């Protein structure tokens, strides 16, 4: 990809950009999927590993979702399993920060999380779509209870700092009005015979009927202030009971204002495959999955273990590591095989005797920048004042998102918002700040949407993934070029070593990518182990 050949065909680029800004970054994955990448989870039920050679052993590097799902299956299949983990906890990016936790980022700044009991923020993944069957299966098998994750909330906001005087608009109103106006226009075009070439007369009648239905049009195919349109966008005065019962319809926003605001870009987020209802979250935080895996695997995981060297010969794999609590200690682990889930920015720096193809692949994948900010407030004003129960507000401000807790409704007391979920340039800029500055910035920007912020703020934490000591970035960013050159090499077994993790998947940045890549890798490793026999 020379710098001049990098000019993309405008149509494809514009399409992707449109989809992306409409639906959000993760949606972009799925858009890419429909343009040629696999996206649906290939998970087809628990892996069946039969005929494990007696005494065969696997050393697993990393106790994240990939490493622990592999450890769980390999242990059950009769392998001797040991897992080395850098952190003092299980889960990796599957992680929840709760009151009492502390987190030290690269550079040495430590944050003490001061959230109230039962309140948390997920610095990493926060939702599990219904079709991520591998993740859901482990939640079931490990006894991790789930609850709904609300992706779309019709009463949350779409916000542009440059439209409607910066006043946030309800998703409900923007969606109804955009849809209503488009339906009216299309209906007009149909009746003016503009569609005769593409729609038969018979279908035109059905089309008109469907447009009235889809856009909440009146009998004359107009989108106007009425009970019909208010049933979508909400009333100026809601219907009630008794003498104050009579509703007053609301006035739709004009088409020009809707189009100019560009808030229509926020309508389709929940239509994307990864965002479609139903989605789930573990009760108590996403980190409950990693914690459950950690309990299940118990002493198989050695924590506080920093890998410093990986060496294979034709008999086994030896890994040198040091105990992070006793710097300088030289420890050694050895097994017949090695499943390595260490994130690529770190793995690229660890001496390892693999072939040039795998080495090149490991060095070829930069990691995305992302920042999440958790803000605790003295009361759940978004529920009490604004009637927003869960879901997400989208904004063009650098904070990009405000995520409302999908649990604990009406619980009184304090509440924790996701005060920002930031990508790209702004994520790098937030990473460059101190944690306190990130929290302050998230407060400043969020105040433009929720003026209660300054009054109600209690405390906050901010995790910048490029400052994470155990990943050095959020997830692997592939291009079509690097996929073509390196992806298969990254996944192939090299001697006695195989890689796994979201970086070795086409569901990048999702836990399901970690699960499916791990199962794929151990399936192949198992065949090698059988072929090699018991003592290899």
């Amino acid at each position, binding site marked *: *990809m*020379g*710098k001049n050949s*990098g000019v993309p065909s405008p149509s494809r*680029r514009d399409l*992707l*950009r449109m989809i*992306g*800004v409409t*639906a*959000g*970054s993760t949606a*972009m994955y799925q858009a890419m999927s429909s343009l040629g*990448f696999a996206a649906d989870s290939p998970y087809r039920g628990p892996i069946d590993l039969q005929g494990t050679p007696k005494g065969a052993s696997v050393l697993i590097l990393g106790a994240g979702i990939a490493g622990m799902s592999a450890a769980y299956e390999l242990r059950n299949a009769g392998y001797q399993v040991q897992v080395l983990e*850098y952190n003092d906890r299980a889960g990796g990016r599957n992680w929840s920060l709760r009151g009492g936790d502390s987190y030290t980022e*690269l*550079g040495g700044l430590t944050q003490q999380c001061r959230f109230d009991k039962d309140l948390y923020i997920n610095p990493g993944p926060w939702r599990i779509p219904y079709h991520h069957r591998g993740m859901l299966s482990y939640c079931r098998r490990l006894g991790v209870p789930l609850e709904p994750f609300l992706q779309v909330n019709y009463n949350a906001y779409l*916000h542009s*700092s*440059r439209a409607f005087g*910066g006043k946030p608009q309800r998703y409900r109103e923007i969606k109804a009005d955009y849809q209503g106006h488009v339906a009216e226009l299309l209906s007009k075009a149909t009746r003016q015979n503009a569609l005769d070439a593409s729609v038969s007369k018979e279908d035109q009648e059905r089309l008109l009927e469907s447009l009235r239905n889809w856009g909440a049009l009146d009998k004359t195919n107009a989108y106007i202030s009425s009970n019909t349109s208010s049933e979508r966008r909400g009333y100026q005065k809601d219907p009630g009971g008794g003498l104050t019962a009579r509703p007053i319809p609301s006035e739709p926003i004009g088409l020009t204002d809707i189009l100019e605001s*560009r*808030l229509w*870009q*926020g309508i389709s987020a929940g239509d994307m495959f990864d965002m479609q209802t139903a989605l789930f979250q573990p009760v108590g935080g996403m980190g409950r999955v990693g914690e459950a895996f950690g309990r299940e695997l118990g002493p198989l995981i050695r924590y506080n273990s920093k890998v410093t060297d990986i060496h294979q010969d034709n008999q086994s794999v030896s890994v040198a590591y040091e105990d992070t609590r006793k710097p300088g200690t030289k420890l050694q682990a050895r097994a017949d095989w090695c499943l390595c889930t*260490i994130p*690529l*920015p*770190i793995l690229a720096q*660890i001496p390892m005797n693999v072939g040039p193809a795998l080495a090149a692949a490991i*060095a070829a*994948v*930069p*990691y*995305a*920048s992302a920042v999440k900010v958790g803000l605790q407030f003295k009361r759940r004003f978004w529920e009490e004042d604004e009637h927003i129960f869960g879901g*997400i507000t*989208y904004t*063009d*401000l650098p904070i990009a*998102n405000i995520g409302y807790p999908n649990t604990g409704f009406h619980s009184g007391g304090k509440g924790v918002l996701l005060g920002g979920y930031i*990508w*790209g*340039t702004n994520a*790098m*800029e937030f*990473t*460059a*700040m101190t944690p306190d*500055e990130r929290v302050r*910035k998230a407060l400043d*920007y969020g105040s433009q949407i929720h003026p209660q912020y300054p009054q109600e703020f209690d405390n906050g934490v901010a995790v*910048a993934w490029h400052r994470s*000591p155990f990943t*050095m970035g*959020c997830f692997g*960013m*592939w291009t079509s070029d690097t996929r073509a050159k390196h992806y298969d090499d990254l996944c192939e077994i090299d001697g006695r070593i195989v890689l796994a993790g979201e970086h070795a998947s086409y569901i*990048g*940045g999702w836990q399901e990518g970690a699960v499916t890549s791990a199962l794929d890798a151990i399936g192949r490793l198992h065949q090698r182990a059988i072929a090699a026999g018991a003592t290899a």
Partner: protein
Amino acid sequence: MRPPLPRAGMRCVLPLLLIVGAAAGAWADDSAVTPTADIGNVSGAEIYGHICQGCHMPQAQGAVGAGHYPKLAGDPALVSWQYVALTVLNGKNGMPAFGLPTDQFEFVFGAVRLSDAQVAEVVNYVRSHFGNNWKGVATASQVAALPHH
């Protein structure tokens, strides 16, 4: 999840370059988040402070965890501006490439692109600060002549 809104979409194509275009936003005068200066005046110091120091740290001292971010202060490899510029343009290991069209990435919102002039600015900045005092100054056209993989 990414914001659904327009500026974000533009940015994913030409991030810093478009910050000027975003100046109508209510947050446009926030110097911590976006340089407010005209693009011609965006200094190497600003680019370093906004982007590079996220990993390489405010004093270019680097950091160590499970892996490490290289220290740029006193790094003898900085003797070659070409080496520094190539690293910024094309990335290295987990370090993002800043010289590529961002829409080459499947995840376009994650990618950030700097112009050749911005790369020259920041290369010159790191080679002349943090105790570094290397001779020679890179220009935008010299950076443009380097391979952008």
